[in-house]
């Protein structure tokens, strides 16, 4: 009976802790939902067409045929244009490369493609692949290869046939009862075919968007920044709890009586959280580099800016949590909910490029998406300082907004 009373009391306390319950029930539901939607492509969910940018640099018939053939592939939704200054423009290589970061792969039909096809010289189609996704670009490559191999076969047949007829005509023309040697003709035909079998007339070349190093990106190049961002957020949220703890144990009240402003107190708390978060990033990236051979990209300055802006935004978020939560336990529950949801949604656990496009767009309401995106720009796509100015700017802006609201809203008592 005593056992029952103890259990009943514990359950009573548990069910009065709204945020504890939120963590127990709401957090897993949200994470499960996000993960399931994000990874729906891997588990046989509703088929989504892959939007693939196609750059058509050639205006010949073969290029048109190629586009038409690709259009017939059900799994693909070709993007042949993009908007610039409000007008639709034909897709360019640079625009396609930019889009590949979100779209998994792009196809480039280069200038001179049709001519090369007509002449039976080595024509090529290029598949630009997103290194974050090894599956979809492979599928695209197969689709293109299948089409080009059909085209190649026809071309080979045409070429071989033409040569054979030419030879035959030549032989007939010289028909002055010269003894025909079929072995030699067969050998000639084989010689004609040989260049095509060794080097197909239409080749599918693959180009990865990675610029920073020759080798393929390793899982550490994605996971170290992704998990670093998540744990920076966890670290910062513990700063929110620490701030509320100071309010609960009375030290904040004491600080308010000292000859310093309220803003100084909050900014001081923020500064320690920011410095901790920045240092945490530095340690995690250093370990990633030294222990896991993680790539550091081409711009150390850009990397530092991303770390600083991520730490700043995370600190701002922590202060915002502290401003809106009344107790430490409330802050802990909400922090877990927010950080886990943002990590699942924002690309800490898997590259954002593998999730459905609408989710990729929605993910950018989180600072995690901007942060992981910026780090990927540097570490995976080999971008420089200029490439991360937007994500870093957004993160700094988010941090500033959060801090402003937090300073306005925070209550010392």
């Amino acid at each position, binding site marked *: 009976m005593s056992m029952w009373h103890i259990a009943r009391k514990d359950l009573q306390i548990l069910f009065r802790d709204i945020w504890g319950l939120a963590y127990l029930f709401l957090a897993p539901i949200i994470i499960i939902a996000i993960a399931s939607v994000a990874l729906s492509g891997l588990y046989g969910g509703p088929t989504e067409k892959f939007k693939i940018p196609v750059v058509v640099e050639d205006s010949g018939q073969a290029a048109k045929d190629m586009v038409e053939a690709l259009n017939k592939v059900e799994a693909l939704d070709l993007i042949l244009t993009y908007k610039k200054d409000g007008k639709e423009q034909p897709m360019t290589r640079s625009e396609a490369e930019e889009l590949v970061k979100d779209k998994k792969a792009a196809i480039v039909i280069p200038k001179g493609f049709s001519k090369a096809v007509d002449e039976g010289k080595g024509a090529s189609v290029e598949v630009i692949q997103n290194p974050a996704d090894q599956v979809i670009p492979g599928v695209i490559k197969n689709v293109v290869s299948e089409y080009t191999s059909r085209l190649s076969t026809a071309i080979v047949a045409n070429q071989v046939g033409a040569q054979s007829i030419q030879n035959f005509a030549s032989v007939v023309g010289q028909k002055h009862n010269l003894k025909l040697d079929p072995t030699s003709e067969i050998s000639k035909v084989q010689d004609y075919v040989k260049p095509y079998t060794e080097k197909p007339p239409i080749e599918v070349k693959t180009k990865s968007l990675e610029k920073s190093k020759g080798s393929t990106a390793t899982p550490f190049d994605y996971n170290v920044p992704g998990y670093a961002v998540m744990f920076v957020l966890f670290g910062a949220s513990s700063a929110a709890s620490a701030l509320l703890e100071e309010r609960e*144990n*009375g*030290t904040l*009240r*004491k*600080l*308010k*009586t*000292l*000859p*310093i402003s309220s803003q100084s107190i909050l900014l001081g708390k923020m500064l320690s959280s920011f410095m901790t978060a920045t240092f945490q990033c530095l340690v995690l990236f250093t370990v990633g580099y030294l222990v896991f051979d993680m790539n550091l990209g081409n711009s150390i300055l850009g990397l530092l800016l991303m770390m600083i802006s991520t730490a700043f935004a995370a600190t701002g978020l922590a202060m915002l949590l502290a401003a809106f939560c009344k107790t430490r336990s409330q802050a802990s529950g909400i922090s877990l909910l927010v950080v886990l949801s943002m990590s699942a949604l924002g690309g800490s656990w898997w590259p954002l490029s593998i999730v459905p496009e609408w989710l990729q767009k929605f993910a950018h309401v989180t600072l995690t998406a901007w942060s992981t995106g910026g780090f990927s720009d540097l570490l995976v796509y080999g971008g420089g300082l200029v490439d991360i100015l937007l994500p870093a700017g957004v993160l700094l802006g988010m941090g500033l907004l959060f801090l402003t609201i937090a300073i306005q809203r925070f209550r*010392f*008592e």
Partner: protein
Amino acid sequence: MSTRDILISTYGLTKKFDSFTAVNEVDLDIYEGEVLGLLGPNGAGKTTLISMLTTVLPPDGGSATVCGYDLLKDSSKVKQKVSLVPQDLALYLTLTAEENLSFFANLYGLKGREKRSRIKEVLKIAQLEDWANRKVGAYSGGMKRRLNLAIGLLNRPKVLFLDEPTVGVDPQSRNHIFNSIQYLVKEFQMTVIYTTHYMEEAQELCDRVAIYDKGKILDLEETDTLLQKYGDKQLVLDFKSIPDWLVQHISSLPHVDSHHVIDNKLTIHSSNLLEVTENVLGWLRTNQIPVESFNVHESDLESVFLKLTGKKLRD
């Protein structure tokens, strides 16, 4: 007392939390070098009042000057002159006493030699020199309270607000805190505002006591004056059994103001207790009525509070 300089003056000071009025139009003058007790039960609004006077909370109405500075307009100057020793232990438990003191000294703008000597000085007052380098988490409750007080002395305040400084401390630390306060007043002419719900403390320590309840000062006088004004001396007689006729007769004796009976104990209230005691004990002896025991209770602030509010301090 009135010839001394007024250090704190409030006029209609008010603080509300939604519809609840925690401090209700308080008018108060506090003189330099005095120990003023704010005596009231928990939830009376004492902490809210001193929170306003130490600039922690902005008032919703009224005005106040502290050390000649307006509470709202010159709050930064007020902060330089006052110090609050909060009811909560405003300490960082994972730091040592010296680290705690150093942190607060930095925020007071103390530097170098001055900072070091000030830390040494307050550690001595709190008698914590030997514990200066130990983490505060390892301190007893009383030692934490003493460190809490030491932090409040770092800026050598003109006015020291002590908010229930003896809650949860052992008698030794309590005595130490009392001695420290008396030393500070004597040596530095410090003005001390002392909130408590222990009437013995207010009675022992304070020059004047404000009886405070429901956000209002009900009366503010020197302790002796309050006791005379509202004090209620009692004679308590303990009988084996007490018949009604006996109660009626004793209550009709001269100078008996009122009486009540609980568990065969007859309590007689009187403003002239000496006379009543002589009369009652004489009559009982004459009539050979046995008494188990008797006690004479002097007036205390508890009875003053009871008279002014109709309830006990710890109700």
